[in-house]
């Protein structure tokens, strides 16, 4: 009986869920959290390089959603909107303080307790550090496009909406950025 009485939020789209959230449906918020919390935590971690800070930002972002769900732009996809909000939060943070992004100390701590890394410890740290360095050399828009595509697996349409450019621009940015990064990181992957 309970099965028939509960609405199936798990099959609702993200856009429908945010609408239910604005109407006070707790289960809709719960479903939205389930879908996006881990992805956004990873996004913040990529930007801020600090797990604790990333968790704080994640809390702030969801608090914003609770307080102002009607700020969602219904003409856009929810995923594009939430990533652009997250990106803006990070931009504001970067304006406030200078972040040290070249070394990833998180992996140094975690690797000590880790059992089986995917590949050699040194390779992982070096690859990570070099990737961060090379990404930081890029223009912000190019870096964001690359990260959204290959680290957060957004579609080209979603990236175009989040960055407010055309799909053609997204494609050409990806083309040049990917080629450039691949060339710069090639020395690490040569055996």
């Amino acid at each position, binding site marked *: 009986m309970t099965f028939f009485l509960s609405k199936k939020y798990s099959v609702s789209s993200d856009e429908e869920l945010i609408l239910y959230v604005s109407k006070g449906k707790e289960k809709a*918020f719960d479903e939205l959290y389930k879908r996006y919390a881990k992805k956004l*935590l990873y996004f913040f*971690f990529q930007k801020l390089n600090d797990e604790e800070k*990333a968790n704080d930002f994640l809390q702030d972002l*969801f608090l914003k959603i*609770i307080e102002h769900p009607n700020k969602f732009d219904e003409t856009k996809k929810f995923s594009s909107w939430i990533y652009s909000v997250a990106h803006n939060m990070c931009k504001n943070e970067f304006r406030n303080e200078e972040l040290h992004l070249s070394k990833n100390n998180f992996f140094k701590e975690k690797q000590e307790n880790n059992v089986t890394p995917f590949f050699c410890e040194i390779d992982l740290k070096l690859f*990570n550090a070099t990737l961060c360095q090379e990404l930081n050399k890029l223009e912000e828009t190019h870096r964001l496009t690359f990260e959204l595509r290959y680290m957060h697996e957004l579609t080209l349409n979603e990236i175009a909406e989040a960055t407010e450019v055309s799909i053609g621009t997204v494609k050409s940015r*990806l083309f040049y950025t990917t080629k450039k990064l691949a*060339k710069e990181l*090639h020395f690490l992957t040569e055996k």
Partner: protein
Amino acid sequence: MNTSFNKKIEHLFKEKSFSELTFSEKETVLTSLSAEEYDEIHTCIKNISLKNKKDAQNLSIPQNNKEQLLQHFRKKHQTQFSMPFTVPFIEISIPYFKPAFLATCVLAFFVIATVMNKEKEDNYELTIEEFNKYTTLYEDHMESDYELDETTAFLMNM
């Protein structure tokens, strides 16, 4: 000169190195990139993908974070008065429930209206003239069925 990857090429360099491509796939790739460039990108993307999986495994969200958010949500959306044990009819997800419920309400309304109307007809009120006509005895209109004898006439006139 191509300035973007098409979807097929993008899919390919996530999955295969240049040497693993079929002949037609190689032809497609070579329209945009050299073999060396393709392999560089393939290796880079593959390593990023492995790194992503590793990062995702290591990151965790504290348990009470979600609870705090839900408490905040409840506080923001709490209602002044809520009846206990009420079934949220709007949220019932039986197919065609809402149209059936609406049709039942309309039918019930129709039945109640019909019954009330019928009772009204049964409770028809007579006018004063009709009441007098059917209840008052007019001796003038009555015909005597029998002849009165002297005694009976005397008694009736007492």
